[in-house]
């Protein structure tokens, strides 16, 4: 392997990938497409032949915990805040003299007279060989901290649910961009043509008043072809849309109808007639 490529892979950390959001992966996708000499072959529907560098990751599991507890109460131990309890955030400065509060403030709170600092009220202790600080709320997670990477340097400028979760899943606060999974599907392709590259376990309806809304765009393909959109595995009804045979058609009946269908579709492509690319619906 080329040493530069190794270097590149080494630089492509989880952190940089996440920080760059969709763009990071988009860059990878573009690079792999450009590495392909025959663009026409691609237009004909050929699958990408491979990556421009050997893939190490085989799959990514991404849990998006909409409505999870705050990091301040779980992993982000901030012992110094105890002393600053009730101090006004707007008055706080870093050592370099910069204001601590530099982002805009949601209109939920921007009208408040004071912005008091509120430290976590839970106890933190160090765990595992790595000595990761974990709060008492996560006694079980605390036992396996050596196997978990916790990134504490993430930040966002989004101040609202919709733009924030759209940003974290698509790299942009506004709708229209492909989601993380769609980029992976587009850029890395599939090892198996019989299964979707990107599946999403969509949420069920809790009916809770405060449960935040989600959006199909969070696993959508944006401006990429829709084959890259997440295939939803649903908690209710058919796990995959329209997976079940209709009432009154059993598996044998369906098998037979598919065979007939294939036979008929093949007829129009073969024989004495000229070719009209029955199977290439995308042209």
């Amino acid at each position, binding site marked *: 392997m080329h040493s530069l490529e190794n270097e590149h892979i080494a630089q492509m950390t989880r952190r940089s990938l996440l920080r760059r959001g969709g763009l990071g992966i988009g860059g990878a996708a573009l*690079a792999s497409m450009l590495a392909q000499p025959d663009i*026409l072959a691609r*237009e004909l529907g050929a699958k990408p032949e491979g990556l421009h560098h050997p893939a190490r990751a085989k799959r990514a599991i991404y849990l998006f915990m909409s409505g999870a507890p705050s990091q301040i109460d779980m992993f982000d131990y901030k012992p110094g805040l105890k002393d600053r309890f009730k101090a006004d955030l707007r008055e706080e400065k870093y050592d370099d003299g910069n204001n601590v509060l530099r982002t*805009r403030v*949601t*209109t*939920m*709170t*921007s009208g408040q007279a004071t912005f008091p600092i509120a430290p976590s009220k839970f106890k933190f202790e160090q765990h595992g060989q790595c000595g990761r600080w974990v709060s008492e709320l996560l006694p079980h997670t605390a036992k396996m901290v050596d196997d978990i990477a916790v990134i504490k340097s993430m930040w966002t400028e989004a*101040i*609202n*649910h*919709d733009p924030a979760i759209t940003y974290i899943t698509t790299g942009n606060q*506004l*709708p*229209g961009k492909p989601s993380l999974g769609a980029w992976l599907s587009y850029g890395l392709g599939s090892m198996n043509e019989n299964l979707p590259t990107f599946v999403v376990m969509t*949420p069920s*309806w809790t009916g*809770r*008043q*405060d*449960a935040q*809304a*989600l*959006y*199909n*765009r969070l696993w959508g393909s944006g401006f990429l*072809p*829709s*084959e890259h959109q997440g295939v*939803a595995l*649903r908690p209710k009804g*058919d796990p*995959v*849309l*329209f997976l*079940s045979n*209709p*009432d*009154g*058609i059993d598996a044998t*009946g*369906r098998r*037979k*109808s598919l065979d*007939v*269908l294939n036979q*008929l*579709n093949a*007829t*129009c492509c073969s024989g004495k007639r*000229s*070719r*009209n*690319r*029955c*199977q290439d*619906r*995308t*042209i």
Partner: protein
Amino acid sequence: MKSLFIAIFLLAVTIGNHSLIAQDSSIIEFNRDIRPILADKCFTCHGNDAGTRKPISASIELKRQRQASSGEIPIVPGEPRSSEIIRRIVSDDEYEQMPPAESKKKVSPEELALLERWIAQGAKYQPHWAFVAPKKVVVPQSDAHWSNQPIDQFVHEKMRGNGLQPSPVADRATLIRRVTLDLTGLPPTPDELKAFLADNSPEAYERLVDRLLGSTAYGEHMTRFWLDAARYGDTHGLHLDNYREIWPYRDWVIHSFNHNMPWNEFTIKNLAGDLLPEPSQEDLIASGFNRLHVTTNEGGAIPEEVFVRNVVDRVSTTGTVFMGMTWGCAVCHDHKYDPISSDDFYSMYSYFNSLDDNPMDQNAKDHAPVISVMTDEGRMAFESLKAEREQLVQSVDDQYANLHDEREQWEQRMRSALDVDWFEMHPESLESSQGATLEHTGQGIVLSSGENPDKDVYRLSYKLGEIEISALRLDVLVDESKARKGGGRSPNANAVLSEVRAYLVSGEGEQQEKTPVSISSVTADYSQPTYSVQNLIDGVVDATNGWGIGGHLREGPCHAILLLNQPVHAPGKTLELELEFGTQFKQHSFERFQIRAAQNLDVPYTRMSDWHRLGPFLESDRNKAFQNDFGPEKAKFQIGATFESTTEQGTQPLKWEHHPEYVDGSIHEFPTGTGVWYLHRTIFPTVDRIKISLGSDDAVAVWVDGQQVFANDVARPVAANQDAFEISVTPGKPAELLVKIVNYGGGCGFYFDSKRGENDAFALYPLWNNAEDTLDASENDLIKQAFLRQHNESTRELVQRLAVVNTEIETFEKTLPTTLVSREMVPARPAYFLKRGEYDKPDKDRGEMTRRVPDWLPPMPDDAPNDRMGIALWLIGENHPLMARVTVNRFWQQVFGRGIVKTSEDFGVQGALPTHPELLDWLAIDFREHGWDVKRLMKQLVMSETYRQSSFAPESSWKKDPTNRFLSRGPRYRLDAESLRDRALAVSGLLVEKIGGPGVKPPQPDGLWEAVGYVGSNTAKFVADMDDEKIHRRSLYTFWKRTAPPPQMSTFDSPSREECVIRRERTNTPLQALLLLNDPQFVECAKSLAARFLTGEQAETKPEQVVSGMFEQALGRPPSAEELNVLAEFHLDRTAYYESNPDQATALISTGAEMPQFAELKASDRSAAWAATTATANVILNLDEFVSKQ
């Protein structure tokens, strides 16, 4: 200075022919061969964006002999070896190499060779083709044998240059299918097919095209492409994603296409319909284009930021749709590839930032500014209603004036009616549930002191004597010695009483009996606004529901009067009163109050007797239980009457039981278990209408004097106010009210309340304390109407009619659809350059942005106003290089499957080059010069021989031109989502051809909306429409929820409509196959297609003919012998299967809606045949030929 760009202009050489594939391929063309390399490899750093241009390497100067800052000459025409640009590309030195290693870009050897040859040939520059206005070109005389139409001549020339030959014309059946799908989105009907095949005249095809262009389906089909571009949706798109009502815009677009509105006019109306002189309703609807972007009302959102996003969307969309440029790139920085500077962007922004809508949509469907939309017929009906109202109001006023004396007398009587002898009641015991000290201070006055709890319940007991009580009066007194004389114990002196309850108590200890006393009406001399005294008897105790005495707003005593439903005469028993203070307002209880009673009142108010209950009648059959009369429904009410409940176990006698404890406004539990119950009471009305509010577990029906007035067959747990309706009664005439409750199992219960006091003279009580001249118009109206209602029959009818007309007008206005429109602020809102696109970083030092169009495009016409109207006029101007090209290219894409410029959304430097540049220019000019006539253009396209070619072609053709860029074959591709579903509905005979109206909701799998829904959203739960009229409409009418678009659409590559999209991708996925095979709507189509060939005249047809008939119906051609064989064999096999599996047959043919055309088959014993035919039809509707246009 934008060094590269400006430098390029200095060198500009006019080169007329910028064809993609040059005739002489040895000549290198800048636009075709060189710009793409530079754009891809160099412009990121050396392009237009001053922000990312590296200072050290700022200028790849294309200018001859000019030195770069390094002292080298980048391009020396004729001398590649001396050109720095070449030297740097080939350099091995990591500090010199271009592009630098960290860019991960590399110039390939082929690209390098091109660059070298270009420089060797003199390095001639061309401006980007799309920014130069199209010039008239001579139509090449390529091959008159094939066709002499201009389109074909251009296409043929290009084919010839690439060694290709046109394909023969497609057969006529294919042709009519193709052109009908392309112009209407629907398949031809069998009759249309037959007629066309029979017409052998040379004009047959043209006549067909003209007919299609004249059909209303044409406008619908054209519209659905536009809806992607206009980002049309039926919801707001962000956060709650509530309903947005803007479908009149969609209907306006349909109408515009059908009436062939010239495209320049269409453009003006979309962008600036509101700025036309005296805009019509339609012009305003059209201006909704600027309002179709997504909006939000999320709590916490910063309105200024949302505002900027909304405006950015308007600019980007306008840029994409009308200019084919990616304007959005210039929000944060100068465009990296195209000459759109951020300054250009914010200049354009300044035209679109002056709409006077609130950036936050309030989660409302009618996010202002909106207009109500009326049809012509609607407007006439509305005007006549308003005229009638005017007349009625006049008569009411006349009558009222004429009856002066009677009125005085009536008012006098009303005024004094409650001014009776209220006698004191002395409490026997007093109790506060929370420990406040209650004491009787004489004269029945109660004082609360000591503990001052947040909430409280006062319990007062009075021993009753011989006197009959018909009303109670609660006086809230004030302590004159206190600073705040409001009457409440809270610091602000206010009090809010949640509820008053009364009971009759007899006996003591275990023997004690307690029955509720029903209070039928209340009134007060004062109620705090929104804290009406009516809340005292509504059975509701919550945070804000109660009678407020307004102690913080006013001073002095006040009182409430409570009318008992029936007079109480119970010597020796105890009257217990409960006063509950249970709102969120702390310590809002009375300090000093007095209860008094009156013996009788000469005041007209509606009373109702106690409830009697009868049941349960046992009946397990749900329908029978609800429908059957078990005795009392027809019979006159008699207390002693006996009834029988008959079951298999025997007969049970039943009698009416008295239930005085069923007090209005609370839920009453009945014994559990399946059964039918009846409830009865007599109403003694003083009014003519009574609003009833019901709750029931489960089904409920209501009769008044033997006439059914309400029925609701539901299964539900009981709750307050589940149903509401109004009954008519006659004042002075007792009415019998009968309620039937049918329990389908489990718990059973009943809730009843009425607003009988609303039209009652009693309700006017608070008004009598005011002088007439202090009453407002609506209060005077109340008095007026109350008087006329009781005066005589004719005055009552007058008032009743007025009420009906008022309701009708209100309903009419409420049901009028609204639609979002544009409205310009005057004076215009200033716009500022936003640094890095940040809403809160306006560059005030630069001053307000000047409204101007980019200098690399033609100037604004002299006489155009400098606003959105000006932008529209500028776009449609003769010299605009983009507008006409972008437009014809989009229509071309619609018909041929791909544009002459493949990237129809991007005509910029990064976009694809036109495959047929001369043709594109010729079409653009021809379109503009012929009045932007869309139907004419569409006709030109489909009349061309190019379009009419067969899509079958020899292998060699596919090898030479796999994607058919040179159009040597007819178009063939998978149908778009809408056409696919519409085609299935059409061939199966289900399609409802109705134009326009609100979005409809054909069935979709459960849970798709819920998976993404916010509990508070009004589109969180999907409820499918039921009637044929709605579920079988064309797909462009399907309700579009943007955060969860209809799966039948999104599975087939439709965009989400969250932003402007003018080119859909076309993919093939297994999900599509699953949908076509299994979606109940597609199965329903198969079932319906099958039914067409099994009923009526065709009922006796042989199976083979059925199969063949369905095939022809679906595909517009008979099956080949081979195809028929395969299908018939399958059909035979399925018939055998369903004959031996009747349950499966029933299951399959039960899919979908009940349709009248199925009645005959359903009644017959042919379900196996129907099921087998359905399975066969399901195969036919999945054939490749069915899902494709070819």
